[in-house]
């Protein structure tokens, strides 16, 4: 414990006051039910470290649920010296910043080629990243004015992909691999790297729910994205790798 030590602030230093809302699967009909429900909410608050706590609002939702708003005093202390900040190799930027950095850094649009390779017909992942519709509230790469996106869809042969990348002068190739039977995703990623060779190749980016993001070097690609990746993260990485330190990114 090195400190500084802090507590939540309501209106007085050190009062520890916090606000919380949640639902419990209990009825809120009869007087007895209401008493039980509020008692249950206070018990939960106490177990969460809020003591004393006060139910300021409770409302039955249908016959079996009750919604609560609770205020209480957090009994926990926060030690700022123990806060760990995850360092990311690149900053996640807004769409406007990404477009601006492409314009100022490259002076031309980025060409991005996307595909599912081999026998993989699951385009959900690549479409979520590329389609304007996007994913998780973020628009796909097609939305970025400074990116030209060519989505080749499913079951693309890696040799065809390499030829098309050359024809389109692609800056980056995005491949999504969902099928993992007999490690098809790993085999596919290696085949991708082999098809492109090592010199004068676009940035190779692979993604899928079962990939281990630390395996990029081993598989011979530049970057691996795992489950839950959003389009903006991919776009931010591309900008970082293509306009930031290109030599380092491709080493």
């Amino acid at each position, binding site marked *: 414990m090195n400190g500084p030590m802090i507590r939540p602030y309501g209106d007085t230093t050190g009062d520890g006051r916090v606000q919380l809302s949640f*639902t419990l699967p209990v009825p809120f009909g009869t007087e007895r039910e209401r008493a039980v429900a509020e008692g249950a909410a206070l018990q939960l608050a106490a177990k969460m470290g809020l003591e004393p706590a006060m139910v300021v609002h409770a409302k039955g939702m249908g016959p079996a649920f009750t919604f609560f708003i609770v205020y209480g005093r957090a009994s926990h202390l926060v030690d700022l010296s123990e806060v760990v900040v995850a360092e990311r190799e690149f900053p996640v930027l807004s769409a406007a910043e990404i477009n601006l950095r492409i314009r100022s850094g490259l002076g031309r649009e980025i060409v991005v080629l996307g595909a599912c390779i081999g026998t993989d017909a699951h*385009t959900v992942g690549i479409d979520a990243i590329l389609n*304007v519709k996007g994913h998780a509230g973020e628009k796909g790469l097609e*939305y970025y004015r400074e990116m030209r996106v060519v989505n080749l*869809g499913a079951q693309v042969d890696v040799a065809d992909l390499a030829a098309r990348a050359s024809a389109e002068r692609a800056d980056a190739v995005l491949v999504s691999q969902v099928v993992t039977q007999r490690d098809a995703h790993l085999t596919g990623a290696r085949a991708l790297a082999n098809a492109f060779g090592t010199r004068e190749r676009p940035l190779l980016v692979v993604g899928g729910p079962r990939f281990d993001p630390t395996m990029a070097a081993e598989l011979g690609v530049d970057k691996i994205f795992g489950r839950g990746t959003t389009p903006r993260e991919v776009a931010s990485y591309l900008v970082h790798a293509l306009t930031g330190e290109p030599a380092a990114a491709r080493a």
Partner: protein
Amino acid sequence: MTSQGSKLGLDPDMVRAARHLARVAGQPIVDMARSHSTVSVERAVLRLAGLDGADDGGMPWVNRLVDAVRETTGLEHGVALPAWDALATGGYPGLAALASDAAAGQVKFRVPEGEGAAAARAAARAALARGFAAIDARRAQRESMIGETSDPPRPWIYLIVATGDIYEDIPQAQAAAREGADVIAVIRSTGQSLLDYVPEGATREGFAGTYATRENFRLMRAALDETSRELGRYVRLTNYASGLCMPEIAALAGLERLDMMLNDCMYGIIFRDINPRRTFIDQRFSRQIHARAGIIINTGEDNYLTTADAVDAAHTVVVSQLLNEFFGAEAGLADWQLGLGHAFEISPEVPDSFSLELAHAQLVRELFPDAPLKYMPPTKHMTGNVFGGYLLDAFFNLAGVMTGQSILLVGMMTEGIHTPFLSDRDLALENVRYVARAAGQLGENFRPPPGGFVQQRAQHVLAEAVGLLRRIGSDGLLNAIGDGTFGITRRPADAGRGLEGVFERAEGYFNPAAEFLEDPATAGEGRKS
């Protein structure tokens, strides 16, 4: 609407000009749709004729049969002639048996001529007559259910469920209806719009949504019928037709009495990179089926405002609505079936943003006085500050009530954070109820002064829409889409998904479903034969 009845002082000549230009832009697309067909249109014919089910790998029999015909005789004459010819000459008990043999490569299809063709046509018409009778019966059943319960007053409260598991969706939908929802929408699994087949059966796994299948439709409709009776109020069910299987999903929706369907003329093109020709051909046929089934369509103009700025792009919404209206009416949809979409998406940082929203919402209300407009809540500027979001949703509800919107999609304070909690929905409905109670009569008193900010803004957006329609009319709609006029993406007419499923109709093309849908007189003859 006359300028006298208009709160916005709209020039009736300009409104007429806008409609005329939409027709000029849309007519070549209709001509193209009338001379072409797609694999999904042909599969819908088979579905309407009663072919259900799938092979061991889950591929529907309609896909297997259409593919088999395509690989042998080709589809240019339609699937019906070769299929019903083979059905009779091969002595099959039904289409499923034929499809099974065809999938195994054991059927020699031909395009019959003379008496063989006449026999195939008659048999196909009889099968389709039964299909349309089933759809007509569902429509009548909806009417009697509404009579037995009641039709809720507008605005209809529209709520979404999306667990991925139909058996979880059902209790959530029933709970939402009990809490006040008039319309339940079951969001589809991510990416279903890009599947070139309709999955089969009840499904319990999906990505951020539940697959649209005939069995899922049936289960949910049955559950909501039970709840409608319990509440004495008819609860409508919505799903999504948009995507590569628009015609087929429209057929299944009609057969299982869904009440509203998302069906936009350009959404698949712009946001899903589906080939423009495929989309327009599929769209026309699917809307003809919706028209017959008494289904209200919902269009997707709200999507434009999530990608482009809601002030700058306001006129693209109006242009798309006019196109959707033209295409919809041409396909036989009545005004009461045109749930044109728009959204409350102006940045709250913009000065007078609420006045601008009122101008846009009132403009759409006056342009389409008889359409059940669907108004979508803010999503783009929901930041994760749930308290600020709750306030923004209240302003959305107020704009909706003041401008007489017909269907309000209920905004969630946790938009963009997670799929709604039970409590999120409950709080959202409390918000709607409060605003409707507090400001229900305010629309009557909303009279923007002549020449004032709101009137000027509405007139400006309409003028911009007319300008854009004029440009589309001279460039051609397919070229305009190819140039990136809508959304910000370029979608060339010869690119995008599903193009390989488009073909030109040959002389003698026969589609027994289209006969019923295009020309009721011919359909009458079909029933006799």
